[in-house]
């Protein structure tokens, strides 16, 4: 049901973009904005991969690592959750070079946003893991599984289902934070929009299109997560009655 409604919204958004770009005033900006949108999507996708990796690693480290590893993980989570993503971007892009470390702007964008969202994600993953019923661990022990086997085969698959909705939120947060990378010289959707707005002063067409493009990207993310949720909850919640 929800997925159909979301899909309808996405189609409507895309149609609106197509309709608007029939107007020459709007069409003028399309190629540049699409270019920016591609970069936004690239940073989102790579950032998401890094975020999921960091979140899993940090959560498992915080839950099951030896003490120093647990500290390290907590430090990472608190620093990247507790400071602004913009400051993190600036740090990696403008401050690190002062210490002789030069990173490409694109790399910095993926790194900063991935680490930032990953820190939030770590708590999502941790929460999902500890929400798996105790009896599941006990059954796995009774079947003589090793800790790694329990996690991999029993606990994480169940935690995975519980963590999909909050991850949906985080990915949308990620889409929106990519606009910050315009401040470290990357020509993403927001950067392109500002550039075109400044050179043409056609504020309404430029920012209308940008708004719709962000919405289209976010809706796509939401739909993908809903589909994933449906697939993952097979047998878990709404089992067909035998």
């Amino acid at each position: 049901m929800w997925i159909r409604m979301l899909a309808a919204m996405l189609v409507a958004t895309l149609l609106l973009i197509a309709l608007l770009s029939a107007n020459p005033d709007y069409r003028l900006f399309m190629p540049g904005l699409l270019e920016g949108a591609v970069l936004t999507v690239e940073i989102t996708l790579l950032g998401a991969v890094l975020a999921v990796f960091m979140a899993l690693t940090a959560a498992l480290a915080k839950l099951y690592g030896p003490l120093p590893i647990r500290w390290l993980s907590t430090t990472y989570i608190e620093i990247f959750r507790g400071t602004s993503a913009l400051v993190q971007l600036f740090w990696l892009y403008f401050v690190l070079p002062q210490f002789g470390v030069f990173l490409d702007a694109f790399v910095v964008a993926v790194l900063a946003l991935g680490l930032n969202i990953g820190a939030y994600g770590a708590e999502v993953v941790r929460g999902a893991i500890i929400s798996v019923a105790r009896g599941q661990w006990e059954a796995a022990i009774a079947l003589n599984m090793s800790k790694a086997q329990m996690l991999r085969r029993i606990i994480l698959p169940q935690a995975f289902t519980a963590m999909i909705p909050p991850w949906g939120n985080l990915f949308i947060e990620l889409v929106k934070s990519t606009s910050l990378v315009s401040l470290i010289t990357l020509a993403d959707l927001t950067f392109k929009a500002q550039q075109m707005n400044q050179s043409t002063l056609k504020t309404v067409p430029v920012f209308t299109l940008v708004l719709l493009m962000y919405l289209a990207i976010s809706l796509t993310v939401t739909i993908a997560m809903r589909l994933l949720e449906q697939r993952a909850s097979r047998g878990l919640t709404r089992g067909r009655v035998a």
Partner: protein
Amino acid sequence: MNDMPMVRFENVSKRYGALTVLDSLNLDIGRGEKVSIIGPSGSGKTTVLRMLMTLEAINDGVLWVDGEPMTHMLQNGKLVPATTKHIRRIRAKIGMVFQSFNLFPHMTAMGNCIEAPITVLGMKRSEAEERAAELLNMVGLSAKKDHYPSQLSGGQQQRVAIARALAMRPKIMLFDEVTSALDPELVGEVLQVIRKIGREHDLTMLMVTHQMGFAKEFSDRVCFFYQGKICEQGSPAEIFGNPKNERTRQFLNAVLEAG
């Protein structure tokens, strides 16, 4: 080694803070013996099974399984606390069925039964499936093998759980109030399966139960626990027919009155 009992609790104690749940328990369970543990709630009876399954650590004493210490290991003739590896080697001999079934909800009945044989024992998938199919047939659930736990009744889930435990070929099976979470009309089908495996498999069985009728008919020995100790034990005829201890009598009267 065969003169050793299958399970031996040697001065085993369990405490939670100031609360002593089990007080220096000594209990031997022979090979192939069927032992029922009864007693009021809080008497420590479930803790006995949970310690044996290594779900609870013990505070004192030594737990022996099949002639070897499980909670400890011999090093230069002395008992030292066991490593995880040692515990897993011994634990392989024990299977357990829980009050709340604890099936893996993301796997079908078949998936539940082949998971550990494949990941833990390294069995080939085809071999594991063949064995699981036999066991599911034995518990009367061949037709439900592709169903998820959420699609099964409580009694069916518990029967899958029994098949899952047997798939690991344990020597000892622990049953922890396995019918307590079931609707009354489903109790019979689960007890029927336990009777069957008692007959057909050469298993040592240890069960905590509130089904006095079943304990009486099925067990070789009944242990009555009270306040962390074995208050009285003996054959079902002795315990149910002629209990010597006042506590046992009170408990049995209360249980029988409740029906």
